[in-house]
């Protein structure tokens, strides 16, 4: 059987079911609402597995799923060298979110990452500690800041309500997912001109390390045919 992992609840699940449905593949829960199993109609040999969206990257990595729907942000954050481990079969056009760097709007001296670096240097000299950036995307943010050659900052972990970190004095800037700008504005924050770390959307991923036996290959071919998808690019 080919195992397809899909978010177990919320908007992401509804949109996923609609996306597959529009392409002639009907996904449905079997049993009650608490049953995390489902059925797939329209293609043979595919088993539906319902998981929280955050678990799907790990399950793709371990190869327990052959295919999975999750955000590009989660894949890039959780799987180093993700291109070697998963392939993007299809961007799905929903669950759009940008990972951005934002600072207080009244920082009129800070427009871009270069300004942030200079401000961090002065901040450290004045306050005796590095400028704090609140995020839950440590890996992505650290490599983005390293690419830009930013010094004198530190990441502080924030697993929720990150936009409030500046107001709460637990950070001076944030790096977070934003689907609309209004939460940022409500918290008096502004995105840096070159502060876009990643544009993300829900995507159907293929696990390169899953057990691709003849049955799974056949189910994939049938599913791909149904969904109108091209061959995934080779790992590189």
């Amino acid at each position, binding site marked *: 059987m080919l195992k397809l992992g899909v978010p177990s609840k919320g908007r992401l699940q509804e949109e996923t079911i609609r996306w597959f449905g529009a392409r002639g593949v009907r996904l449905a829960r079997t049993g009650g609402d608490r049953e995390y199993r489902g059925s797939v109609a329209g293609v043979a040999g595919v088993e539906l597995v319902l998981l929280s969206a955050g678990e799907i990257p790990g399950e793709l990595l371990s190869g327990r799923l052959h295919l999975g729907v999750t955000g590009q942000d989660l894949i890039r954050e959780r*799987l*180093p*060298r993700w291109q*070697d*481990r998963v392939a993007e079969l299809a961007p799905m056009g929903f669950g759009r979110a940008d990972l951005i760097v934002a600072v*207080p*709007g*009244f*920082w*009129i*001296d*800070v*427009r871009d990452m*270069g300004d942030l*670096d*200079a*401000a961090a*240097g*002065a*901040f450290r000299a*004045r*306050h005796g500690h*590095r*400028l704090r950036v609140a995020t839950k995307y*440590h890996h992505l943010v*650290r*490599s983005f*800041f*390293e*690419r*830009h*050659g*930013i*010094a*004198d*900052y*530190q*990441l502080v972990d924030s697993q929720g309500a990150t936009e409030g970190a*500046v*107001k709460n*004095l637990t*950070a*001076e800037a944030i790096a977070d997912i934003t689907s609309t700008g209004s939460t940022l504005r409500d*918290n*008096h924050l*502004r995105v840096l001109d070159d502060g876009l770390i990643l544009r993300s959307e829900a995507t159907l991923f293929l696990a390169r390390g899953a057990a691709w036996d003849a049955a799974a290959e056949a189910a994939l071919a049938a599913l791909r045919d149904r969904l109108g998808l091209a061959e995934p690019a080779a790992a590189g």
Partner: protein
Amino acid sequence: MVSDRAYLKGARIGAPLGRLEAEVARVMAALSATGAIRVEPEVLQPADVLLDLYGEDIRARAFTVRDEMGEMMLRPDFTVPIVRLHMDAGAEPARYVYCGPVWRRQDAGSDRPREYLQAGFEIFEAGDAAAQDAEALAVICGALGDAPVRIVTGDLGLVLAAIDALATSAARKAALRRHVWRPARFHALLHRYGEGHAAAAAARAEVLAAEAAGRTRALIAVGGVAVGLRDADEVAARVARLAAEAETEPLGRDDVDRLEAVLGVEGSATAALADLRRLARGLPRLDAAVDRYARRLEALAARGIEPEALRFEGSFGRTTLEYYDGFVFGALPVGRDDLPPIATGGRYDALTRVLGQGQGIPAVGGIVRPEALMALREGGC
């Protein structure tokens, strides 16, 4: 394999382990030959010390562990542990030798080792820097024996002096010095101070106009509610610096070219001296750094290291984890692209100042990777 270790197969047991132990003993004897004393720093180092020194980037390179006492890192190298040890209990002048494992985080799929041995030698001593630089390289080369390596050298002191010699504002020089070890930001700054100067001012026209008209505070208020620890005074202070920067003459093409030329010098250490002399013409501060470079070549020759046989690269040592600010060197394996540098080292006076809260001691030293050295000497993998 469980019995494998960095660059060596099966060398955690039996005869291969015996050969490695003999190699380590030989290396340590060579490193100790000038009377250095043995030290054994802690494996667990306070994370905040390393983070304050190297910044957040260190988290991608060092393993972090924590308990109720706080966050620690497995030492990613010996430099900081030994400086801390010296500051706590060392007498000056001092020469230290040490050997032990270090740990580095690696990305998935990387074939670099996460654990490997370093054996090293460090000098903490004020006085004749050229002689100590030469001693450090000579001692490390002595430990490498007849292994097929080529020695590459550099000098971050020359880069820092070339920045200092620029005919421009102190603020620009400080910003460039701060980023010597981050080439991307360094070159972005050079561009902004030179060719990109007008564009940078144009992009901030509104802020600069407000500052000129004495309306900076008003513009800050328009920007939004002042949230967070960085307050309006700090914003206003940086706006004033931006205005001063906009009014500073752009860096001349010649100045930028000369700085790039110093970074681009390559060749034998003696040929490089001639190039550097030419580049330093009319610039006393850079010329003084070239004098120090020339004295080092003499000291190396006195130690039996022929400068003609050394390679010099102006950018060598700029992208390493270390905080080198003077002489730097590496011993690269000949014909073995699969092995890392067999030895590396350099001078790190500034690091001792930072860790000593201003109380520094000139310091230079280097490390050998015994496992890579044995792999190189034995051939094969």
